[in-house]
């Protein structure tokens, strides 16, 4: 074979090898492209499913009908509800124990909070606030076991907030007398909106500088705030207001007398826990309350 023929044959072989390598490279590139498509499809599909679920949640929320403002209560109803809330029988409290309510947090190493030698229970809340709405029922029932609570008015939490229009009591005009205890309620905010204020609602009553200092120290910037003699505070809500949804004030007050009702398990349970905390400050007085089975059972939740 001549030189020219050998060169031609080498060139042909080299061309065939290049062509084979090119085909392999193209095939691998196609595989890679398919792989990237598959990866994008799976990753994008997974994220799309997640986003679709979130969008569904938002759509469900937006689709819920806006809550209507609830009608105001009459004076007769207010007196009737107040009477029922402040006179829950001991047998009912005993049957409920701590119910479904959550406990309190303990504070140590702080000077006792007192007024005229009596332990002080300080409540700071707002009329708009749904969690305050839940807590007030229990506070009213608890402090009524140590003295006389009056001047309660009937309100709803804000219609624009979560747990909208939760029926509740207001302490704004309340008065309290007791030989064991001082109860100081402060309804810091009303229901009307005011975006320029903290919590976005108008001021109703102003806490003193000392009360604000306690709120700043222990309150986690959240209401409801409940300080029981600087020994116990409310770490969160004791129960969620969902059990009160759709009920009237009268229905709630009546249900508080029925130990088998979900309302009693929430409100009376929370009241027993608050009562047990107060009893540690009143040195077990009055004995009939502090030594009752319900309070003793709830003391375990402190």
């Amino acid at each position, binding site marked *: 074979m001549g030189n020219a023929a050998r060169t031609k044959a080498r060139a042909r072989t080299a061309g065939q090898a290049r062509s084979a390598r090119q085909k392999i490279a193209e095939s691998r590139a196609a595989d890679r492209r398919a792989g990237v498509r598959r990866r994008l499809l*799976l990753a994008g599909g997974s994220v799309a499913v997640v986003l679709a679920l979130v969008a569904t*949640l938002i759509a*469900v929320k937006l689709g819920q009908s806006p809550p209507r403002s609830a009608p105001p209560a009459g004076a007769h109803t207010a007196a009737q509800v107040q009477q029922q809330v402040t006179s829950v029988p001991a047998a009912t409290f005993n049957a409920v124990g701590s119910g479904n309510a959550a406990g309190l947090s303990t504070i140590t190493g702080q000077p006792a909070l007192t007024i005229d030698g009596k332990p002080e229970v300080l409540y700071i809340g707002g009329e708009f606030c749904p969690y305050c709405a839940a807590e007030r029922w229990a506070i009213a029932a608890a402090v009524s076991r140590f003295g006389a609570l009056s001047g309660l008015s009937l309100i709803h939490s804000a219609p624009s907030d*979560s747990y909208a229009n939760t029926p509740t009591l207001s302490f704004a005009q309340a008065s309290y007398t007791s030989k064991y205890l001082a109860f100081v309620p402060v309804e810091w905010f009303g229901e009307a909106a005011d975006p320029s204020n903290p*919590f976005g609602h108008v001021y109703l009553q102003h806490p003193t500088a000392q009360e604000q200092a306690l709120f700043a120290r222990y309150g*986690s910037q*959240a209401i409801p705030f409940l300080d029981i003699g600087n020994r116990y505070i409310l770490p969160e809500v004791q*129960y969620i207001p969902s059990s009160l949804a759709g009920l009237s004030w009268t229905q709630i007050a009546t249900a508080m007398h029925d130990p088998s009702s979900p309302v009693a398990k929430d409100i009376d349970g929370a009241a027993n826990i608050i009562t047990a905390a107060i009893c540690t400050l009143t040195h077990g007085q009055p004995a009939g309350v502090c030594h009752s089975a319900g309070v003793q059972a709830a003391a375990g939740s402190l």
Partner: protein
Amino acid sequence: VRRAQPLGWLPRTVLVLCVLGFADSGYQVYTHFSGTGLLGCSTSTDPCVLDQNSIYAWVFGIPVAVYGLAFFAFMIVICSPWAWRSRLRVIRQARTAAVVTGMIFVLYLIYREVISLGRICPYCTSVHVITVLLFGLLMYDVAGSGLPRPVTAGEASHGN
């Protein structure tokens, strides 16, 4: 001694997201236990404080922020350069299982925020967004786990 191969864009991005999520969750845990309040939420407390103090802010008695911190701490370990270079299959499986679990938990928290509370906390939402991005990236990684590796220049020259 073999020089460690540099990590690609995906492991680096995942690690950065894990660190961001850890910092965000850590801040929320700190404010939760110190009671100092989240920055920017002290005056307009509606969403952040109500979310953080709601009944849903605890799961089995533990603040949800603590779960977030634990999740991102685990993800940092499992998405570290050492873990990405490891050939152990169990590491990839653990990474996938963790991010799927995290994603389900985030969906539960979004449900509570949107439906139960009607309040969206920006700090929580930032953690949720980070988790969704992690989920997408790690699903992208999982989908590529069965594919042939691209041929490198060195391997190509050996083949010649």
